[in-house]
């Protein structure tokens, strides 16, 4: 990758984003191949990788903004917009398909009234597709903020949703 042109003035950046990014880059930027760990760090801290953070990450990493943008957009996991309070990753892969994932997917979309990559109007839930959670012996599976759920059915989903927001 090419070295970035030295830009003295960065575009305006909200203070909390600046602080969060610099905390992560100061900690990680000297490790070999640091960009993915840094993007994970920023997303862990802010919930997403804001567009405003890109010039600062690029400067700290000595990369061009295009390089950083290219990496962020390559990986499905990195978000460029904030998510809902809970992110539901629903498995679409074959083992789950064999156990009714398509019906489950239709049910969840109807129930939350959103499509994949969308967030409910009240900002509570974001729905994302995922291609295998490694829980194929307990299909269909979904993961909510790192918590794995197996043998899901529309009924079990509704029960979970009711327990979440009574």
């Amino acid at each position, binding site marked *: *990758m090419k070295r970035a042109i030295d830009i003295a003035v960065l575009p305006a950046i909200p203070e909390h984003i600046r602080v969060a990014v610099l905390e992560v880059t100061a900690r990680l930027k000297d490790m*070999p*191949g*640091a*960009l*993915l*760990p840094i*993007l*994970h760090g920023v997303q862990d801290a802010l919930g997403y990788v804001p567009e405003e953070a890109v010039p600062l990450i690029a400067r700290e990493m000595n990369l061009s903004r295009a390089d950083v943008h*290219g*990496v962020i957009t*390559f*990986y*499905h*996991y*990195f978000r460029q917009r904030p998510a809902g309070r809970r992110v539901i*990753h629903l498995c679409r*892969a*074959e*083992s*789950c*398909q*064999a*156990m009714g994932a398509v019906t489950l997917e239709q049910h969840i979309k109807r129930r939350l009234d959103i499509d994949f990559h969308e967030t409910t109007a009240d900002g509570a839930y974001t729905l994302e597709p*995922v*291609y*295998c*959670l*490694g*829980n*194929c*012996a*307990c*299909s269909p*599976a979904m*993961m909510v903020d*790192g*918590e*794995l*759920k*197996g*043998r899901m059915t529309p009924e079990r989903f509704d029960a979970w949703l009711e327990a979440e927001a009574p």
Partner: protein
Amino acid sequence: MSVTVYVPRDAGALSLGAEAVASAIASEARRRHADVRVVRNGSRGLYWLEPLIEVETSMGRVAYGPVQAEDVPSLFDADFLHGGKHALAHGPTADIHYLKSQQRLTFERVGVVDPRSLEDYRAHGGYRGLAAALHMSGEEIVQTVLDSGLRGRGGAAFPAGIKWKTCLDASSLRKYVVCNADEGDSGTFADRMIMEGDPFVLIEGMTIAGLAVGATQGYIYLRVEYPHAQRAMEAAIATAEAAGYLGDNVCGSDKAFRLEVRMGGGAYICGEETSLLESLEGNRGQVRFKPPLPAIEGLFGKPTVINNVVTLASVPIILDRGAGYYRDYGSGKSRGTLPIQLAGNLKRPGLVEHAFGLTLRDLVEGYGGGTASGRPIRTVQVGGPLGAYIPASQLDTPIDYEAFVAVGGMLGHGGVVVFDDTVDMAAQARYAMEFCAIESCGKCTPCRIGSTRGVEVIDRIVAGDARERNEVLLRDLCQTMIAGSLCALGGMAPFPVLSVLDHFPEDFAGAADKANA
């Protein structure tokens, strides 16, 4: 004296309520003044019985499952702490036929030991492979791995020893060992089970690889969908470092080996080894041209051994018991054992490690017990999303790398996904192309554009639009992708599509007839 109860912390068991079971056992024990020690083990791989809890008794470990938190009071009432009778009881774990009939080498400790305990690992034969390797030269270690016949368990089945030898012979001051833990194929979970259930075996295998080729730094590239495995691996690495098994002076040998876990970003393509290396370097995960081989110019341009989790986790037992011990399992050019993952529509999904040579029927009907829905099996997809759909008429195909190639399939990472007769095969063919379009890295045209065109052509066939002409076009497109793609994603995504055209053409015809009616 306290009674030991095992409650898995395996992600699959947790997904079915194991955490609530563990806390219910602890609180019920307090209430009844019973002296209980709860150990959080990995999974035995008997997933239809998860959460499967075990009690250490005078007759060995006794199994109960599937247990939910509300079953716990009745288990105490039945005196399960002494192996008492209960509706969920399965008797001694070791006698359960599904488990007893397996040949567990790589998975010998998974579900047995406490994955956080180095003492437990050592007490069950752990670190004996490394002890042997420390008395050997790099050449001797590589020769042992070559002699064992171990082939890469990630999917490509390339002989591990040849990769290692190439890396050993490359001259460089810095070399790397990279573990491909980007287990993205649907229907596979063996890597996850090892990392969660026996993380030290992967650390030991990578350390031996480092000693063999002269590498001092290792990376585990782990998919972001596996947070439980991340926690288990990081805890085990910290413990191994503190005990001197990793660091600047491995076991006082004056040889250094350090290990780090790096998280992926949800890109399937990063399971392809050169794409993975790009990702580790902090770039877009686009595949590289080969040559140069990673063993000569790999991570950061340095010679790199890159192997899958199961491959590396099979190395310690080979070093401990000798190449011959491992090679004596298996058949033909497929030596040793393969952990098969049974998934999809099955009564008894789970992990079956066995020497090569069982048939697909032994697995899905014998172990798997047929479909969970009770309907006939229509097709089995072996080897992940790029694997062919094998019709029920070919279930007698033996588990053997070459035998699968002969029927137009591949064993891949050993995932077996079963579908019953309600499956719409035209939809499965479309999904294969759609998946390729979503996950293509974009570097080569056949994969990037071909997959999107493939979805469109299948849509036209299904709509009944010039079906015969479009079928010719689809086959032609598949051949272009197979012959012209840079890596296995574009090069193999047509396999499931072609298998549907060959074995299930009626599903396209049926849809077209409906459209014409």
